[in-house]
């Protein structure tokens, strides 16, 4: 971490400014708020069924999460299979 003599710290100013800007904007404008229907509705779900099929092996990766991890981005639609 310190082998680059801490020059990355110089990014803290712009990063802090941007973060504060968005934090204040969202605090006043509440643009990120909407009905939390995923939690606020009564949902009766049967247990999830499914099976795993191995398609590939990745070795030696240093990434902690899969690329494009969207497990918590419920509202972002992915490709829709037509029924």
């Amino acid at each position, binding site marked *: 971490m310190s082998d680059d003599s801490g020059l990355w710290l110089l990014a803290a100013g712009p990063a*802090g400014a941007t973060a504060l800007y968005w934090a204040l904007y969202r605090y006043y404008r509440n643009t990120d708020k909407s009905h939390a229907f995923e939690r606020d509705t009564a949902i009766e779900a049967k247990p999830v069924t499914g099976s795993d099929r191995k398609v590939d092996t990745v070795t030696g990766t240093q990434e902690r999460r899969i690329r494009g991890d969207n497990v918590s981005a419920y509202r972002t639609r992915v490709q829709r299979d037509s029924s």
Partner: protein
Amino acid sequence: MDFTVDDLTLESSAERGNLDTQSNTNNIINAILPFDTKNALKWNASYLAGFTSEKRNLDVEKLRPRLEDQLLSIARAQVEGSVRRYDRGVRWERERVDVHGTRWVSMYLPVWLYSYHQPGRNGGMLHYIAVNGRTGETMGSVPVQQWKLLLAALTTGTIIEALVLFFLVAAS
């Protein structure tokens, strides 16, 4: 997975159903949902005396895309717990929903609204403060002055940067 949802509240006015936060603040009114819809009463015109009401101008077919979108979101939220064992996350690539049956009810819901018009480009922005007439849940949008926001951000950024420079010079 199979699931039943009881119940989803959707705005049946095309204008109110448009939740684009770039152009309006309807998401504020959306955010005070849900209502205790189970306690709804049979329609009576005298309930509306002295109040203004939104007009329903969408029928069920027009609401279906939003319904399916919300059902997919619910499904994704429901399966999250079952994929925890994949401890490096999951990337969903395809999804599909089959709606097996629905029951639709049209309902008037009480919302206290305060509005403030902020002048600006494209007719400005109408800001709402909305109170759920049954639960008291409140949400609001307050107009921000861009230059004050920028000033606050730049000031803070400058202070942080000065501290960093001080630290780097002292450490070297």
